[in-house]
């Protein structure tokens, strides 16, 4: 595709319209916020929410389109649209959680919301990337903004600690990813995903040492971003220290974007050399599930617990990746359910939180069911979904991934996973115990004065149930999205039929 072809240029601007909207919005928010007081940032938040909604509508327009843009730098397919939509949903929820939180904690609104938008831009770039450089660009845009967001509460020591830790380890891991990209480029002679796919599929590579080293480095780089054991050390401290909406955004948005790129590169383009990386992911998946769940059991801080739970869920997703191409749709569906469930859980955590640290202990949830039955009921829905109890979305997600993995003969890994689910039941149910069977805890204040937060909890709860009880359309769109990615770069369609 020649860059001078006018028709091509006409074509390429449309698919990146959502990205443009987000970019313009980020700058507009920054400018509009110059004169806004830190404690009155709700207006900026609403502006952010509106622009995200516009981007969401534009992204819907991409669904069904198909091809590459910007000379192959951007993939236009339902895969990128699917992830962009889910990332935008996650961002909108984050804004809804932030409206009061940011004002109350005197977080500088202009910086906060524009950084959020820039980081959404990075995430969407990762989802839509058509070559390895764009993946890297997206990753850096996302990561650098999230480092700042983690430390945006400047007077809070833990927030600062979180930012520094995240930055140092994150920068380190980015190095791995970049080095991996360079080695893969060295081996295949291209950074474009389509040609890489074709080069590997031709079988000419064999076990080229450059390629193997490159794949290994990239596994480490992505492993850091999705917080897989043993690259997870940063996650709990960062999740605990960061402002809670940012934690939610990291646990969902960053994970979505990282998995989008991880899945596209590995399950589509590296699929033909799966023998080289699937075993590695098998081990990482087993370690991640087991490590995350076991350490979560002893946590007393809800944010740390959710951090380890997020690690464990990354393990279930990696299980799907390790099992090979067939599980692709299952992973996408799982991520969708995980998004709503986790965002809901974090919204409830924010509802309980007060200035400072109070409200973040699991013991603070004691007696919540008696004082706030609806809030506790919603939290129960999220916890049951995280555990994987039907009919919530989390159950169907696990069911889908496990069943696809089983179909591909990964019985051992699936058994490890279900035993891990039993372990996870222990700590998730412990929050239920605190809410329903114990007394004490903190009062929830001014819930009625925080309509956006209440809406976030309610919508997330509804979505968690709906996606679980009537999963068919979401399964179909996940399958469609995954197949469009693998179809866009040729082949596999035979292996993908359900």
């Amino acid at each position, binding site marked *: 595709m020649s860059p001078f072809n006018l028709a091509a240029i006409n074509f390429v601007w449309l698919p990146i319209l959502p990205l443009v909207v987000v970019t313009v919005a980020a700058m507009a928010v920054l400018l509009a916020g110059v004169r806004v007081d830190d404690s009155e940032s709700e207006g900026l938040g609403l502006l952010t929410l509106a622009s995200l909604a516009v981007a969401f509508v534009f992204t819907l327009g991409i669904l069904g389109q198909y091809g590459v843009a910007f000379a192959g730098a951007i993939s236009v397919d339902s895969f990128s649209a699917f992830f962009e939509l889910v990332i935008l949903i996650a961002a909108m929820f984050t804004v809804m959680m932030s409206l009061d939180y940011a004002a109350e904690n005197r977080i500088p609104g202009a910086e906060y919301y524009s950084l959020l938008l820039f980081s959404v831009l990075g995430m969407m770039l990762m989802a839509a990337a058509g070559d390895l450089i764009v993946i890297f660009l997206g990753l850096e845009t996302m990561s650098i903004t999230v480092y700042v967001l983690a430390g945006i509460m400047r007077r809070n020591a833990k927030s600062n600690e979180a930012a520094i830790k995240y930055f140092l380890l994150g920068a380190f891991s980015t190095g791995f990813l970049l080095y991996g990209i360079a080695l893969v480029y060295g081996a295949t002679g291209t950074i474009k995903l389509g040609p890489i796919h074709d080069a590997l599929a031709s079988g000419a590579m064999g076990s080229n040492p450059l390629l193997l080293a490159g794949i290994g480095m990239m596994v480490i780089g992505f492993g850091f971003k999705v917080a897989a054991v043993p690259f997870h050390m940063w996650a709990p401290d960062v999740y605990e220290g960061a402002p809670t909406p940012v934690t939610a955004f990291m646990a969902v948005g960053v994970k979505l974007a990282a998995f989008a790129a991880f899945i596209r590169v590995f399950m589509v383009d590296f699929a033909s050399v799966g023998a080289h990386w699937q075993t590695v992911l098998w081990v990482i998946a087993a370690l991640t599930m087991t490590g995350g769940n076991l350490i979560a059991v002893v946590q007393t801080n809800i944010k740390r617990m959710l951090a380890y739970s997020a690690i464990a869920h990354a393990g279930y997703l990696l299980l799907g990746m390790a099992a090979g191409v067939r599980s692709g749709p299952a992973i996408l569906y799982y991520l969708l359910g995980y998004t709503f469930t986790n965002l809901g859980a974090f919204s409830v955590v924010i509802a309980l939180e007060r200035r400072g640290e109070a409200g973040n202990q699991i013991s603070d949830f004691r007696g919540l069911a008696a004082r706030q039955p609806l809030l506790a009921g919603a939290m129960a829905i999220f916890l049951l979904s995280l555990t994987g109890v039907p009919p919530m979305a989390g159950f169907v997600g696990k069911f*889908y991934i496990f*069943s696809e993995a089983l179909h591909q003969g990964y*019985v051992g890994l*699936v058994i490890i996973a279900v035993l891990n689910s039993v372990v996870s*039941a222990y700590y998730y149910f412990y929050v239920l115990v605190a809410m*329903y069977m114990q007394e004490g805890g903190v009062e929830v204040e001014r819930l009625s004065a925080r309509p956006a937060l209440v809406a976030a909890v309610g919508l997330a709860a509804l979505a968690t149930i709906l996606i679980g009880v009537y999963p068919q359309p979401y399964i179909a769109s996940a399958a469609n999205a995954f197949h469009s990615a693998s179809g866009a770069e040729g082949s596999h369609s035979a292996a993908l039929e359900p």
Partner: protein
Amino acid sequence: MNGGLLTALIFLPLIGALFILMQSEERAIWNSAFIFSLLPLALSFYVLAEFNPHVAEYQLAEQYDWIPAFGITYHIGIDGISLFLVLLTTILITLSLLYSGGGDIEERPREFCFFMLVLETGLLGALLSVDLFLFYIFWEVMLIPMYFLIGMWGHGRKIYAAIKFVLFTAVGSLLMLVAILYLVYSAHEHFNRTSFDLPLLYQVPLTVTEGRWLFAAFALAFAIKVPMWPVHTWLPDAHTNAPTAGSVILAGVMLKMGTYGFLRFAVPLFPTVAVEAIPLFMALAIIGIIYGALVAMMQPDLKRLIAYSSVSHMGFVMLGIFALNPEGVDGAIYQMLNHGVSTGGLFLLVGMLYMRRHTREISEFGGLWKRVPVYAAVFMVVMLSSIGLPGLNGFVGEFLIMLGAFLRIRLAAVFAVVGVILGALYMLWTYERVMFGPITRAVNETIGDLTGREIAVMAPVIALMLFMGLFPRPLISRIEPSVTAMLARANVAQARLELERQPNRLAALSPARQISNRKPEMAAAAR
């Protein structure tokens, strides 16, 4: 297809549960909960009237696509195996709600009624599911309300008991989920379509090794629920600490889900392995019968005593199921109903005592006969039913089970008789210590006899005991066809096994050599 009768039966309680969430006045909550439990009760009797006793297959079936991507359908139906368990569920839920509204549950009645009705939906759904995925959903759904019932309204170490209950059950069910997925995968390999529909899955050919592993996974999940020795340890804790209504439903219906699972899934899905496993399961059942009875004898706490007696009684049910002949399996199903009625009744009676004295220690009582004669008389009938006195329901079930076991392995019946004797022993001894002798505690002088509401709760229980003891025929005749159809699969497997062992004796295939060629009339005559 037929007006969605069974769908209405399953989801009416759920609608009631949501309706109750909107109520705030306590009296209104209890009344609406009771009414919403009466509706499925009435509906279940209508189902009984509609039920055709001569058909072995699923009746009143409904089937709609649910998740076509996985080949999952909303497929429900009722047959002779599930029919009376459905009735048992609706009856016991209604009685429990009637009882609990009388002062047993004082805190948070709205949540209590909500969870009871959600539990009813879970139980009925699990009993009526024909699709394995649907069954698994309901199987898990019924776990959650019971967890809350124990943890929120229990006594003593309620949180420990609730968590233990969840973890034990979860281990079994999740491994069963893996087995379900594997089975569906094998079906896909063979029939080239993904389906969770039970009738199709019955026909999946499996290798011997696959069959053994899958059977093991299913059997573990169900054995934990039954509970069979040695995976019974969650039961005494759960029962002792649960509120009365929780114990009634737990013992009355939920344990039956385990034995029902064996009848509906583990045995007919893997008949060959089930036939191979007869000696193992009969041995475990007998250990359970005798162990449960011995431990029950030594319990100082009334609820713990009944809990261990459940281990013993459910051992009888397992013995009947693994006799794998019509007598044994009919008896097992009958005994499931008996145990539900009599143990449910016992837990209700202990609950009534606990409400008056706030203790369940046997040593705290004595001489109650003089103070509360009506209570003592009711207790007597329920206890005798639990022991298996002829004329009451317990006898019919135990007799059929022992007949079945005798026909299968004679020695097993001998041990089972020992269990019956021990059962009579601990029950009568308990009755003596609680009811007879002088009144040793001054507080016992002041306790009152049964209230009108309590009599209303116990009267249906007594009526059921008498009816089921005197007229087993209407029940057995409806149970029988489905059991025969189920056993036909085991018979084929049995014949095939014998053929493999003695390949030169083709006679093994003849009907005369099948597990049991006794006609139903003979079993009836034996009664």
